[in-house]
């Protein structure tokens, strides 16, 4: 039996819930969003990831209706939403600051949107208590926002934005104000709620771990453009550019010139006199093209002796060790001065560590461990 895979973006029949068509947004001389085209599908948990000022918040505010595109069109279920004001859109937003109404109780905060819709008292009662149960806030219904903790406030904000059962829920750095432990718990809670309600979620974050954890697809943005849209695994394992490789997680980037050696295999000449590195990739490169080899530290093996039959092996000296408890990152300096990071899981206690500072070690990796990226 195979599990049904949720991949509407690979289905040519599927119609996206949201479509950006050549959207540009300028604030005066500043271009926040630059000719952006993208489709987001129903029931997706879509993450917009990028450094601050990359345009991700502007993109979200255009969906909510607080900004209008300078050029291009945005469609929600096939309808152009540019002329629709925020209060008439089937879109709700969870604000970064939560924006809970301080003068209203938790119950009234959640009921706020329902009352505006003119629902009956009984309907509102039922819906609000459903939301309180979903977010485990029943005990706090009568409290005011300043009488509950940060994590509870965050859940109220979520309940309030979900109460109207929007087609699309926007989350603007929703977990930014929580400490790490609480944030991790809440991420799973968010995913759980997203699955239960079947709502399409678009989340804006600058925290790559968060994006990787919750999202079905991640869009990495920079300077108003989307650099890559892919599943978290693809973004991590097969970045399409050095920018994405560098932005997501830790990476070693080795620059060199490419020489094809047959059957999707290339030799990367990265330093005069050094042995060329072997890389296998499906992407075609021409002879003499400059490229970067991007390789994740955890895919680099560290050993005392030169391993037999390794595709790539280099010798160096341990310069630094970053001990993180579960793993250690070794910074190894090669004779040429290049520093390569290698990560190992600490399966033994630290007193039994095999390598220490100034030790001479060998780093090795397979031909398929890294990704070759054209400049």
């Amino acid at each position: 039996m195979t599990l049904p895979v949720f991949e509407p973006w690979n289905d040519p029949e599927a119609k996206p819930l949201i479509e950006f068509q050549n959207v540009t947004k300028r604030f005066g001389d500043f271009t926040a969003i630059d000719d952006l085209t993208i489709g987001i599908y129903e029931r997706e948990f879509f993450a917009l990831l990028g450094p601050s000022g990359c345009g991700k918040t502007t993109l979200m505010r255009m969906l909510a209706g607080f900004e209008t595109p300078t050029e291009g069109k945005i469609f929600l279920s096939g309808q152009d939403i540019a002329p629709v004001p925020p209060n008439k859109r089937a879109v709700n937003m969870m604000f970064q600051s939560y924006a809970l109404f301080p003068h209203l109780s938790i119950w009234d905060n959640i009921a706020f949107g329902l009352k505006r819709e003119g629902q009956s008292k009984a309907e509102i009662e039922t819906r609000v208590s459903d939301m309180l149960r979903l977010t485990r806030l029943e005990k706090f219904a009568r409290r005011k926002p300043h009488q509950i903790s940060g994590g509870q406030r965050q859940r109220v904000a979520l309940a309030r934005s979900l109460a109207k059962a929007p087609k699309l829920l926007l989350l603007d750095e929703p977990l930014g104000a929580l400490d790490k432990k609480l944030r991790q718990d809440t991420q799973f809670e968010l995913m759980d709620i997203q699955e239960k309600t079947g709502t399409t979620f678009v989340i804006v974050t600058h925290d790559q771990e968060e994006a990787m954890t919750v999202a079905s697809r991640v869009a990495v943005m920079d300077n108003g453009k989307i650099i890559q849209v892919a599943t978290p695994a693809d973004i991590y394992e097969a970045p399409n550019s050095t920018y994405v490789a560098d932005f997501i997680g830790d990476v070693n980037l080795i620059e060199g010139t490419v020489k094809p050696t047959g059957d999707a295999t290339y030799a990367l000449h990265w330093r005069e006199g050094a042995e060329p590195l072997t890389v296998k990739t499906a992407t075609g490169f021409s002879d003499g093209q400059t490229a970067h080899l991007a390789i994740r530290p955890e895919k680099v093996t560290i050993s005392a002796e030169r391993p037999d039959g390794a595709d790539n092996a280099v010798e160096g000296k341990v310069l630094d060790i970053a001990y993180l408890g579960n793993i250690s990152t070794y910074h190894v300096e090669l004779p040429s001065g290049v520093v390569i990071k290698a990560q190992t899981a600490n399966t033994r206690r630290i007193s039994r560590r095999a390598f220490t500072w100034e030790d001479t070690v060998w780093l090795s990796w397979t031909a398929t461990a890294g990704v070759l990226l054209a400049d």
Partner: protein
Amino acid sequence: MNRMSWFNTVSLSLGFAFLYIPMVILVIFSFNESKLVTVWAGFSTKWYGELMQNEAFLNAAWVTIKVAVFSSTIATVLGTMAAYVMVRGGRFFGRTLFSGMIYAPLVMPEVITGLSLLLLFIGIGLDRGVLTIVLAHTTFSMCYVSVVVSSRLVTFDRSLEEAALDLGCSPAEAFRLVTLPIIAPAVISGWLLAFTLSLDDLVIASFTSGPAATTLPIKIFSAVRLGVSPEINALSTIMIAIVTVGVITTSLVTKHQMVRQKRDEQEAART
């Protein structure tokens, strides 16, 4: 408890003496039996009784209260609107000029404001009376309201309004249901400020009042020119009493709110 040093004791007493000796003397002499203000002739409340019989003073008091209530209410509405536009209106043509001009009456000599209003009222043929004083007081107290309200709006989290819009409010509903309740304390203190300013204004009122309508400050001022009577002391004592009660009530309410909020927050931190 620490004992105060002699220096602190002296500065404290000096400060309070400067502030309150004149008022204390006024209050004491309001209970003077004698008609002569400066000669003590025993305790009596007869001047308070006579004050209650004095039609002219009672009329003036009534006019003053009417003017203060109306002008401060109008000024609060207009001032709040002006503050809202200035803080939220974004960039529009003439914004800098507008924001500069709205504060100009704060520094404008009252005589000039009064005179220009007088010329205006004569120019448009408006008879001077309660209406003209209300208009004049609205004019100068509006900017105080807008200063108070805009300083609150500047720190107001804009995303609260956006959240209201997002949840289906029209911009007007968002203002009524979210913005206004939250800035209400600032609006109320703006109103109180405008009310007090109107209560004790003498200069502008004397330019814009007519024979039919005299406010209390004008009445007191003109009465004093004919000599200080114990009746005026009694009147002033009543005014001091009203203001004192008002100030104490406000501070008690504020303190109570702060205590409650602190308790709430501690409770929230525990759970």
